C-alpha cells in the first residue's frame, strides 16, 4: 500500500495553480499601471511615442530617471480639471441616486414575482447587452435629437409645439447613463431582495408596523449590501464615463473621462492624460476602500 503523500512534483504543481491568477494580475494590471505612472511623471515630446524619456530596455535605471511631478502640478493649477472632476462626481452621484430610485422598484417587483417568471425577468434585464453599447447610445441620439422620436411623439400628442432641445444637454447624459447602467443597479439589488424572507415583512406588519414603515425598518436595511454594491457598480464607471457625454452631452458637459480622451487623442499629451487617469483612479479607490472597511466591520460585529 502506498502511504506516501503526493510526490514533490505534484505538490509543486499544486502550488503553481494559485500562482496563475497572480501572474495574470501582475502582467496585465500591475505592469501597465507602473507604465502609466511612469508616463505621468514624464514630459511630452514631439516624437514617437510622444513623451520623454523613453525606456528602451537597455538600462533598468532609465525607467526611473528624469521624472518629475510637473503634470500633476499642472492639473492642480488648471481650473478646468478641477471643474471637470467635480462635475463628473456630481453627474455620477446624481445618476446613481436616479438609478437607485428607478432600479429599486424593478428589483423589488422581480424578487416578489412568481418563481417561474424570475429567470425570464432576469433575461429581459440582461437582454440589451446583446446589442453593442455604442449602437444603443447612438439609438438615443436618434430618439433625443430635435426631429427625433421623442419630439415627434410629444408634438404628435400636442403636448409641445416647439421641439425640445434634449440632445447635447446634461439631461441627455442622465438619460443615457440611466439607460445604460440600469442592469448594474437592478441585478445586485435583486440578488439581495430575493434572499429576504417574506415572513420578516409579515412579522413587522404583525407587530404593528404599517407597510411603509415595515419597508424602511426591514426591507431597506436588509437590502443595504445590494444598495451599496449596485451604487458602486454604477458610480465608479459613471465618473469616468466617456462615450455617453461625448455622444449625448453638449460642449458644456464637462466630464473628466472626456477630458482624458481629448488630452490623449487630440492633444497627444500622453503624460498629462496619464496623470488625469491616475487622479481618477485614486478618486475611485477611496470609496471602494471605505466600503470594504465598513463591510468588514459590519461582518465582524455580527460574529
Amino acid at each position, binding site marked *: 500500500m502506498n502511504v506516501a503523500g503526493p510526490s514533490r512534483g505534484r505538490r509543486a504543481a499544486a502550488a503553481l495553480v494559485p500562482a496563475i491568477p497572480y501572474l495574470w494580475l501582475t502582467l496585465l494590471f500591475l505592469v501597465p499601471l507602473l507604465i502609466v505612472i511612469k508616463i505621468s511623471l514624464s514630459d511630452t515630446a514631439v516624437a514617437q511615442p510622444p513623451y520623454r524619456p523613453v525606456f528602451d530596455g537597455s538600462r533598468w535605471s532609465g525607467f526611473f530617471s528624469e521624472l518629475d511631478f510637473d503634470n500633476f502640478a499642472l492639473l492642480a493649477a488648471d481650473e478646468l480639471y478641477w471643474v471637470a472632476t467635480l462635475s463628473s462626481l456630481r453627474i455620477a452621484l446624481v445618476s446613481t441616486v436616479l438609478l437607485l430610485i428607478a432600479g429599486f422598484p424593478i428589483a423589488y417587483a422581480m424578487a416578489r414575482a412568481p418563481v417561474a417568471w424570475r429567470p425570464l425577468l432576469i433575461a429581459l434585464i440582461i437582454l440589451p447587452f446583446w446589442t453593442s453599447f455604442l449602437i444603443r447610445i447612438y439609438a438615443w441620439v436618434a430618439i433625443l435629437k430635435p426631429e427625433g422620436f421623442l419630439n415627434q411623439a410629444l408634438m404628435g400628442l400636442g403636448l409641445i409645439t416647439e421641439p425640445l432641445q434634449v440632445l447635447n444637454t446634461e439631461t441627455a447624459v442622465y438619460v443615457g447613463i440611466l439607460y445604460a447602467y440600469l442592469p448594474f443597479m437592478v441585478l445586485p439589488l435583486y440578488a439581495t431582495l430575493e434572499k429576504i424572507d417574506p*415572513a420578516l415583512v409579515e412579522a413587522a406588519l404583525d*407587530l404593528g408596523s404599517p407597510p411603509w414603515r415595515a419597508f424602511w425598518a426591514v426591507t431597506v436595511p436588509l437590502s443595504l449590501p445590494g444598495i451599496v454594491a449596485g451604487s458602486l457598480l454604477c458610480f465608479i464607471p459613471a465618473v469616468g464615463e466617456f462615450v455617453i457625454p461625448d455622444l449625448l452631452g453638449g460642449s458644456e458637459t464637462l466630464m473628466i473621462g472626456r477630458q482624458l480622451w481629448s488630452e490623449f487623442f487630440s492633444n497627444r499629451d500622453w503624460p498629462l492624460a496619464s496623470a488625469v487617469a491616475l487622479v481618477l483612479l485614486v478618486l475611485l479607490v477611496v470609496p471602494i476602500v471605505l466600503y470594504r472597511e465598513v463591510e468588514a466591520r459590519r461582518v465582524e460585529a*455580527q460574529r
Partner: protein
Amino acid sequence: MPAVPPRHISASVGAVRRSFAPWADPSAEPLIRFQGVIKRFGEAAAVDDLSLDIFEGEFFCLLGPSGCGKTTLLRMLAGFEEPSRGRITLAGQDLAGVPPYRRPVNMMFQSYALFPHMSVERNIAFGLRQDRLPKAETAARVEEMLRLVQLEKLAKRYPDQLSGGQRQRVALARALAKRPKVLLLDEPLAALDKKLREETQFELMEIQHGLGMTFLVVTHDQEEAMIMADRIAVMDHGRIVQVATPGEIYEQPRTRFVAEFVGDVNILEGQVTGRENGLWHVASPSAQGELAVDDPDAALEAGQPVALAVRPEKMAIHRERPAGAPNVLEGEVWDIGYLGDWTVYRVKLGSGAILRVTRANASRYVEAPIDWDERVALTFAPDAAILLTR
C-alpha cells in the same frame, strides 16, 4: 335494566385543568369566532365552510396533516389572508378589512422571522416601538420578556449568534411583548430537536397558564397537541373533523381519520349484526366469532358496515387462548419492536390483517417472552373498542 354508571374519559382528570371548560358553558362568550369561513386559492378551497369558537384563556391546537388548511386559518386571524366568505370576530369585533398591523393578535412564525439586523432586545422592542410606548416603559417590558424566556444575558446578541432554542425563545418573547389578546403560534417547536421540544412544550404551557393568555397553536405533531392543548381541533381538507379535549380525541374519535391521525389504532372492518344487553355485535372476517362492543354513543342498524377501532395498548396478547374471554383474535407474531418502556407486537391474523399490540414492560425480567412466529391470541374488553361509520 340497571342504571349505567356515568363513564369518564380517563385523561380528563389529569391532563386538563379540571375547572377550566368554558366551551361546556353555554353562557360563555367566545373570544374568537370563525363563522362559515371559506378561503379559496384559485379553484381549491384551503378552508371550506369552517365554524369554530375559541374561548379566552384557552390553549387551543389546530392539528392536521400538511395542506389541511390550518396555517391558512391562522394567517386569516393574523390578517395576512382575507376570507373569501364568512366572518371572523375577535372579542366581538368583526376583523374583516382590519389590516394585520391593527389586530390585537401577534404571531410567532414557524421560521421565527427574527430581524437579522437587530439585536435580541431590539427585536423584542420592535412591536412596542411601533406603538410609540415611552422609552422607560419599553425598556421595562423588554426586561420582563427577557426574564420570562430566560435570555437576560443575551440581550445584545444578534439572531445569527444564537442557537435554535434561543431563537425560538426570542421569537416567543417578541410576540408576547405587546400582550396580545391572542398569541398565534405556527409550528412553534418544529425546528427544535426532540429533547428540547419536550422541555419547551411544558415551558410554553407554564407561560400560557402564567399569563392567562389565549394561545392558538398550529401543529402537525399530534403528540405536541395532546400534551399542550386544552382543546384540539383536528382538521382535514379544509374542514374541522372534531373539536374536543385531548382525552376525548384519543378515546372517542369521531371518524377513522381522527382515530388514525391521533395515536395508533387497529381497525377491523365488519358488519353490525345486532344489539344485545347494551352490547353491539359485529361480524368481522378477522374474527371467528362475533365481536362485542360497548359503545353507547354509536347509533347503528343491523347490517350496517362499520369499522371497529381499538388502540394497541387496550389489547392484550396471550400465548394461550383465554377461556371465556369475549373478543378473541388469533394470529401469529409477525414483528416485535422493543422500545424500552414498551414492546410493540405486530400480529398477523388469519384474514391477513396485521394488528399492533403494545405491552408495558413493567418488570425487568420476563420468564418466557413471546417470540417471533409464535401463535398468539389477542383480546380486548368490549368497552376498549369504538365503532366508526365514517
